[in-house]
C-alpha cells in the first residue's frame, strides 16, 4: 500500500497547520494540542470554504428540478462522487455510494448484500480489533439470521497473523469484515494478502476504512477489494457524509436499503421498481453540501505529497515512543510493525479518564475510554486506555506537550 520509494521533500508541517483555523485557538489559556484526530479530524479552510462557496452560489436539491441551481448542485454532487472515485482509484464512479458515514456504509453491506445470503450457521470472519461499527451490524445477522461470528485474535504486539485469518475462512464463510487500521492499536492489516486468501476460497472482503482512508494511500482496484467503507470527518472533511465503495457486480445484486425518494425507478399504488446503483442506495435528499466538503478534503489530501505526510506522521509516532520510554509506569498497547500513527497506553494506577482530564487542562486533547472496541479491550485485559492519534497537522512540539502533561498527571495521581 505504500508508494514506491522516492526521495520526498520534508513535509512542511507549519504550512499545513496554517490551513487549519482551529489550531490557532487556545484552550484554558494554553495552545491547543489536538491529538484526537482518530475520533474526528479538524477541517482545513479549503473544506470550509468549498462548502460555504457551494451553499452561497450553487445550492439546491439534486436530481430533481429542471431549474438552473438544481443543475449546478447536481453537477457538484456528482463531481464529488468522481473525486471519491479518484481518491480510491475505483474503476467506475457508479461504484461509489454516498452514505452518512462509515457506520451506515457497513450497515448497508450487512442489510443489502449479506443478510439475503445468510443461512443459519454461515460464518462472518472478523478480527478482535474491530470497532463497534464493524461488529454490531454483523451481530444483527447473528441475532436475526443465525450467522456465526468467527473472531480472529491478534498477537500480543497487536499484529494480525495472516495464517490465522486464512484458517478462519472456511466453506461456511460468507464474508471477511476487517479493519484497514485499528483505531486503538494502530495496526495496519495486510489487506492485499487477506483479500487474496479470501478470494481463493470464493469469499468477499469488506474493509472498514474509517482510520485507514486518511493514513494509507488507497487503490481499491489493486487491492481487488469487494467493499471499502469510510467516513468523511476522519479525513479532514465534514460530519454526516461517508461512502461505500463496492464492486459493480455486487451492487447490482444488492437489495435496496432505505426506501424513499431518489432510489426508485417507478412507484405505483401496487408496485415499485428501483433505480440502478448507486442511486438505489441513496434514498431521500442526500448530504449534498457535505459531499462537496468531503470531496474538497480529498482534493486537499491529494494535493499533498501523501508519502511525505505518512513519513511525517510516522516520525511523530517514533518520536513519541522514544520519549515515552522514560515513563516505566506506562504501558503502550499495540506495537505491530508498520503500524499507523495511533498511540494507546495504560498508565499504572491511573484511570484513563483521570489522565485525560489532566491532559485536557494542559491543552492536550486525547481520547480516553474503550474506543468503541470493547472486545479488544477485553483481549488486552483493560477497561479503558488513553489514546493519542496523530494527524498531518501535528508536530513534535505536540508530542513534547503530551509528555509534559503526562508527567503532570503522574505528579497529581501517581
Amino acid at each position, binding site marked *: 500500500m505504500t508508494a514506491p520509494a522516492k526521495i520526498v521533500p520534508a513535509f512542511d508541517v507549519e504550512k499545513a497547520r496554517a490551513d487549519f483555523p482551529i489550531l490557532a485557538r487556545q484552550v484554558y489559556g494554553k495552545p491547543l494540542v489536538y491529538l484526537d484526530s482518530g475520533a474526528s479530524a479538524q477541517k482545513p479552510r479549503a473544506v470550509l470554504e468549498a462548502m460555504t462557496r457551494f451553499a452561497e452560489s450553487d445550492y439546491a436539491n439534486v436530481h430533481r428540478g429542471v431549474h438552473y441551481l438544481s443543475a449546478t448542485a447536481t453537477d457538484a454532487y456528482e463531481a464529488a462522487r468522481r473525486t471519491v472515485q479518484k481518491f480510491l482509484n475505483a474503476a467506475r464512479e457508479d461504484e461509489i455510494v454516498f452514505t452518512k458515514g462509515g457506520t451506515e456504509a457497513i450497515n448497508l453491506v450487512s442489510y443489502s448484500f449479506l443478510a439475503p445470503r445468510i443461512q443459519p450457521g454461515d460464518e462472518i470472519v472478523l478480527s478482535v480489533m474491530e470497532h463497534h461499527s464493524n461488529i454490531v451490524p454483523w451481530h444483527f445477522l447473528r441475532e436475526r439470521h443465525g450467522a456465526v461470528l468467527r473472531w480472529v485474535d491478534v498477537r500480543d504486539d497487536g499484529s494480525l497473523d495472516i495464517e490465522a485469518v486464512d484458517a478462519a475462512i472456511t466453506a461456511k464463510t460468507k464474508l471477511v469484515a476487517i479493519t484497514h487500521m485499528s483505531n486503538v492499536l494502530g495496526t495496519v492489516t495486510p489487506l492485499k494478502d487477506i483479500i487474496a486468501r479470501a478470494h481463493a476460497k470464493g469469499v468477499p472482503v469488506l474493509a472498514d476504512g474509517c482510520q485507514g482512508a486518511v493514513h494509507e494511500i488507497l487503490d481499491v482496484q489493486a487491492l481487488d477489494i469487494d467493499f471499502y467503507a469510510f467516513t468523511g470527518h476522519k479525513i479532514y472533511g465534514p460530519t454526516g457524509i461517508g461512502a461505500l465503495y463496492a464492486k459493480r457486480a455486487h451492487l447490482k445484486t444488492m437489495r435496496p436499503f432505505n426506501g424513499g425518494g431518489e432510489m426508485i425507478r417507478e412507484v405505483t399504488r401496487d408496485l415499485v421498481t428501483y433505480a440502478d446503483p448507486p442511486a438505489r442506495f441513496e434514498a431521500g435528499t442526500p448530504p449534498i453540501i457535505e459531499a462537496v466538503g468531503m470531496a474538497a478534503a480529498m482534493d486537499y489530501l491529494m494535493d499533498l505529497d501523501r508519502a511525505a505526510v505518512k513519513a511525517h506522521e510516522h516520525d511523530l509516532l517514533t518520536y513519541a515512543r522514544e520519549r515515552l520510554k522514560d515513563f516505566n509506569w506506562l504501558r503502550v498497547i499495540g506495537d505491530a510493525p508498520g503500524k499507523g500513527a495511533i498511540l494507546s497506553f495504560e498508565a499504572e494506577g491511573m484511570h484513563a479518564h483521570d489522565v485525560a482530564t489532566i491532559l485536557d*487542562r494542559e491543552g492536550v486533547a486525547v481520547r480516553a475510554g474503550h474506543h468503541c472496541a470493547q472486545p479488544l479491550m477485553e483481549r488486552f485485559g483493560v477497561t479503558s486506555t488513553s489514546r493519542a492519534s496523530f494527524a498531518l497537522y501535528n508536530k513534535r512540539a505536540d508530542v513534547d506537550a503530551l509528555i509534559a502533561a503526562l508527567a503532570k498527571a503522574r505528579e497529581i495521581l501517581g
Partner: protein
Amino acid sequence: MDPSLRELYQEVILDHSRHPRHFGALDNATHKAEGYNPLCGDRVTVMLALDEQGRVADIKFQGKGCAISQASASMMTELLAGRTVVEAEKLMEGFLHLVKGEKAADLSPDDREHLDVMSGISEFPMRVKCATLAWHTFRNAVEEGETSADAKAGAA
C-alpha cells in the same frame, strides 16, 4: 498547575480512591444494583441492607473506575450508612446539585462540609457522570434492586 485540577484531585479524594471504604461484597444485602457508564466502561455494584425502619443498616460497593467514581462511591457509603432511605434521597439531591455547580440549599451544614471536597467536579462537566454513578446506582438498588427472598435466605 491549574488550581481547579488541584481542587478536583485533592488529597481526600485520592485517599478515598486508593483506599475505598466499605469496599467488598455484602452477604446479607436486601438491595443490590449494578451501575454502568458506557462512556468509559466503568462499573460499580452497590449493595445495601435495609432494616425494618427503612434505614441503611449496612452498605458496600464493588467495582472499577476512575479516581472520581471510586472516591465518590466510597464517600457515599460513609455518608449513607445509618440513614433512612428518605434521608438518603434528600442527601443525594443535594449532592447532585453540588456537583453540577447549582445551589445545594437542602444540604445540612455537616453534610455540606463532608461533600464539599466533591464540589470541584462542577468545573469539569464531562466528569459529573463519574461522580454520580454510585449515587444513581444506590437509587436503583433501593427502587428496583430488592434481592429475592431465596437469595436472602441463602445468604443468612
